[in-house]
């Protein structure tokens, strides 16, 4: 099936070349970081995780796109999603791949990465994160590949794939839960020490992932002969509507607990994000933008006519994607470190090389997504033509 990724339209070739160029720049910058050390980033003794780990946190959510189409199709026999399960699975693969790459570029000694396997440590949540992320990557690769190949040959997928599909559903929940546990179990980090962290990760994931999937479906319809389907897009839109409302609800639960209890260790981080702390507040405009985008999207999606119109639906999806990205990819990680355990305020702002490496990793994800989607769509077109 890989041969389908080699030949394509001129537009396709140019897009792939652009991505390769961006990846080249990102890789070059990474080599510099590899040579010099993480000092070329904006990270510091106080804010020791930043942009890279935040992207991991956000992209774990995007990977949830798969389960939101797989679950209704396989567990509820919702036939319409049969057409798009492959798109969900093939979006999950580059998302998880990017997660793993972001962990890699964040390591101080990446050459020793395999120590996590040589000295397996079950009490460390990072060990489990490695297990669930890799597991989810391979599950989606194996499932997606086999189901697509069967579709191409117009036969039923092999029987052994079914149990793997069922396994992939709880597994999807595990990647968010375990990633949330990276943060939620740390004493002395009041911002993250909340039992609702994992549910928040799930809700934002089920909003961000399917939002991106809707946008991709609309794009595919425009640039290929394959139409993912109006009903499919509308069903995804309903999932997104519930998920984004839950996400904002969970956040408000957090705000209540933190501010009604008035415990400074928990309050200070929220204050830093939304109103500033001791004169520092680099993220204030971002956080309010994020909140506004999410509320704006909820209002839009709740109006049936707006949701049914694919143009306005697309706008809501973009708003959700950006809103949840700011929340997870910008605010959540650095705010956990500000103020620091000794209650000093040292802010974090990513540097240009750090952003270039980040864009490079995103370009790798976009390239893998492009190749996988090209393969899947070519086969869909091939089957439709036959």
């Amino acid at each position, binding site marked *: 099936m890989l041969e389908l990724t080699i030949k394509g339209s001129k537009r396709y070739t140019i897009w792939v070349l652009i991505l390769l160029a961006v990846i080249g720049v990102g890789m070059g910058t990474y080599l510099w970081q590899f040579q*010099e*050390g*993480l*000092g070329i980033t*904006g*990270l*510091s*003794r*106080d804010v*020791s*995780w930043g942009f890279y780990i935040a992207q991991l946190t956000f992209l774990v959510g995007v990977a949830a796109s798969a389960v939101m189409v797989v679950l209704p199709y396989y567990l509820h026999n919702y036939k319409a999603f049969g057409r798009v399960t492959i798109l969900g699975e093939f979006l999950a693969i580059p998302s998880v791949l990017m997660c793993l790459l972001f*962990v890699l570029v*964040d*390591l*101080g*000694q*990446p050459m*020793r*990465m395999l*120590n*996590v396997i*040589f*000295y397996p*440590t079950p*009490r*460390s*949540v*990072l*060990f489990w994160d*490695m297990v669930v992320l890799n597991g989810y990557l391979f599950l989606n690769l194996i499932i997606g590949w086999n189901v697509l190949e069967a579709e191409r040959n117009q036969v039923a997928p092999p029987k052994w794939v079914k149990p793997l599909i069922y396994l992939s559903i709880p597994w999807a929940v595990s990647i968010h839960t375990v990633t949330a546990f*990276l*943060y939620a179990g*740390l*004493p*002395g*980090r009041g911002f993250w020490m909340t039992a609702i962290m994992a549910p928040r990760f799930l809700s934002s994931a089920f909003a961000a992932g399917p939002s991106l999937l809707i946008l991709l479906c609309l794009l595919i319809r425009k640039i290929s002969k394959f139409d993912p389907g109006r009903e499919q897009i509308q069903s995804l839109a309903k999932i997104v509507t519930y998920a984004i409302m839950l996400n904002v609800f969970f956040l408000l639960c957090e705000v209540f607990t933190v501010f009604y209890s008035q415990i400074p*260790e928990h309050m200070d981080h929220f204050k830093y994000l939304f109103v500033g702390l001791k004169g520092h507040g680099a993220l204030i405009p971002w956080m309010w933008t994020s909140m506004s985008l999410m509320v704006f999207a909820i209002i839009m999606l709740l109006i049936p006519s707006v949701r049914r119109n694919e143009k306005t639906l697309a706008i809501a999806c973009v708003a959700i994607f950006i809103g949840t990205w700011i929340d997870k990819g910008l605010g959540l990680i650095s705010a*956990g*470190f500000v103020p*620091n*355990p*000794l*209650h*000093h305020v*040292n802010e974090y702002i990513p540097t240009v090389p750090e952003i270039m490496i980040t864009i490079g990793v995103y370009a790798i994800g976009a390239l893998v997504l492009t190749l996988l989607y090209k393969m899947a769509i070519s086969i869909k077109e091939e089957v439709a033509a036959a």
Partner: protein
Amino acid sequence: MEKSRRSFLKIAGVAALGLGAKPAIDVLAAGGGTQEPEPALVRGPQAMTAQQWAMVIDTRKLKTSGDLEPLIEACHKIHNVPKMPKKNHEIKWIWEDEYGHVFPNLHAEFVDESVEHRPFLALCNHCENPPCVRVCPTQATFKNSQGIVTMDMHRCIGCRFCMAACPYGARSFNFFNPEPYIEHVNKEYPRRMKGVVEKCNFCAERLAVGKMPACVEASNGAMAFGDLYDPESEVREWIRSNYTIRRKQNLGTSPSVYYII
């Protein structure tokens, strides 16, 4: 590299650290494989041992920054701690801060004047229940047989999970190669490379040859050091006869550094 690491281990008598150093030895064993005999774990004749090493700082005797400076210097000099040019990349094993920052949960608007202006020492607490050890995915940071939370610099992958987990901000990361920023290299103690985390080790390498930690030695009797579980030890004597507090005791980490206020 392999060779020098090995000879360092022999000379400095890290073997004397006892079973706590086992992970470091394992790393060597995995890398070896030639005719050379395996390094053996033998405690040196002068080695001091404890079930849980602990420290008591009598803050009444350390009144000014000038009192703290020599003992911070002693530590950083002996352990090849670099002076990084940027504050973001600062590396410190033991440092000075105000009461309200060292004990943020005890911070109050109105406190005893002498306490308010007194400088306080902050360092790794060598917790009995250390969160940094719990989260390390490679066991590069571990609690040795003497209760010291220490590190295997050759195993650390630089993920910095321990830095997120430590509630005391005791850990530093080598954002760059520290080598050029070490003023006077002490060849008796290893230097670090870029990309690894480091912190106070309660002078495990000195205890192994019968010496007190550098800061304690330089403190002119303002600090006591000993076995927390030996009722006759100096630390127990100080704790028995003075009211002491520990940092963020409510987190259940059980810090081994006590402060007399």
